């Protein structure tokens, strides 16, 4: 498995490849190696709207970080 952290000001649901799940921001997420499009659950008060990533060669000690910034909704 590979490890990812989605940083955001708030604790918010994370949407992976358009599929909603129980994933949350600011936690380590586990996914199989591969290509993903990451976005956040509504409201649409974040930028960029979507982040594409190639998730490979991570460890739980060194997860892949991505950052969303809060905008005025």
């Amino acid at each position: 498995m590979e490890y990812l952290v989605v940083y955001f000001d708030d604790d918010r649901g994370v949407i992976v490849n358009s599929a909603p799940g129980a994933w949350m921001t600011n936690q380590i997420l586990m996914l199989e190696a591969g290509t993903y499009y990451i976005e956040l659950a509504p409201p649409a008060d974040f930028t960029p709207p979507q982040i594409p990533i190639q998730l490979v060669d991570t460890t739980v000690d060194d997860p892949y970080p991505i950052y969303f910034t809060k905008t005025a909704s």
Partner: protein
Amino acid sequence: MTSAKRWRAGFMLYLSIAAISCATATTKLRTDQLPTAGGDGQGYRFENLAGGKDANKLFVCLAFSGGGTRAAALAYGAMLALRQTHIDWPQKGGTLLNEVDCISSVSGGSFPAAYYALYHDRIFDDFESRFLYRNIEGSLILEALAPWNWPWLASPYYSRIDLAADFYDDDLFDHSSYDQLISQKRRPFVILNATNIGSGNRFPFTQDQFDLIGSDLGPYPVARAVAASSAFPFLLSPITLENYQPLQGFPVLKEYQTGLQDYYNDRSRYYWSQSQLDYVDQPHPYVHLMDGGLADNIGLRSIINAYEQSNGFIARNIPDIDRLVVIAVNARTQSNDTISNSHHTPHIIPTVAMATATIAMDNYSFDTVDFTNELANELKQAEEVSAKSGGKLKLHAPVPYVIELSFEAIPDAKTRQQFYGIGTNFDLPADQVKALINMGCVLLKNDPVFRCMLADVENEAAGHSAAASACDGGATAADPVAARQITCPDPGPWPGNS
């Protein structure tokens, strides 16, 4: 009536039968049934069955292998043990059987899986008499010999598998369809697995899979799915479905689209995505299905995929799962090698045919169990590393428990060989069925991982959740109250001392 009129009447009757039997039980997806981009939507999907955060805390999946009545009886015995396993976590006073969230099955294991999903605890009232102790093979032969079935069998659109499916529909599954499973709105989510013999890939009977052939699983008879899952090569013919793709407005899941970019990152993800997209991008008009054991004879692959893939129902719920329990009931055979005793070239039928059909099944069985164990170890390591990191970032990895029940765990070598020697057909002597039911229960009750899992659950219910897992350090000493309370049924006289 003149001879010409008689011929015409006979021909019209034949055409009518052909027309009726040609009409497959599948229906095209309506526009309002098209899945959303995220894969959500109507139909037989995990997320449409009841449950929630609390229901996911203890997440239990069962995998029932193939192996005819022997597999069905072993799985049924394990379910008897689960039914007697009383636990107080996450809810007070439940049984572990009530906590089962999914069952994935192939071939013989699909009979108890589907029956339990449809009828729940009624399985313990009548499944033994309706299926396990019945000569299913004899009944199918009688059906085939009945003169009123000859015109059907003469039709190119009706074959032995249709006869079997109709028999299961009439005599076992009471004409139930997937719509009934959906309307119950309760778990377990049952995944009956067949094999697409055109592509060689696993074909699970779920709406997610039926989306890809533009078809509504709802009206489809459960009996036909079971028949496809257990259509043993050379004995039964394939079950055929129509593929309605390309379907206008059909959204292809992003999971599969991105998977096509992962040839160098993850080959299994790449090839699985490719095989799924082939239903949509290069659609063949028909899908021919045979025994699920040809692609995975344990039934674990569907559970592994649900855990690994980002659109999988386990992966999507991982942050809510505290304990992930996978119990694989593996009725694998280990028959003596009699082929190698002779210098004569084995006969194509039945020796080579049977070996061709079963060798791959057994080899693949090891592969899937090993892979599941690797995933469990990975989860365990992730949890440990995260715990040592001082809590800078939270990682919610469930504690995994992978339990494989097989005859290999029978301590006495002679008894073990006798169980391995039981046939994988659908007509076993009553004393063997009785012994198998008992063995399924005993194997689970005595399994060290099962016992330490129960000890962990009892510790958590008692408020000792921070304590080390009873599985650490070999797990052989765990003596949970819940396991002590399991009383397995009488094993009967077989195998005795013979």
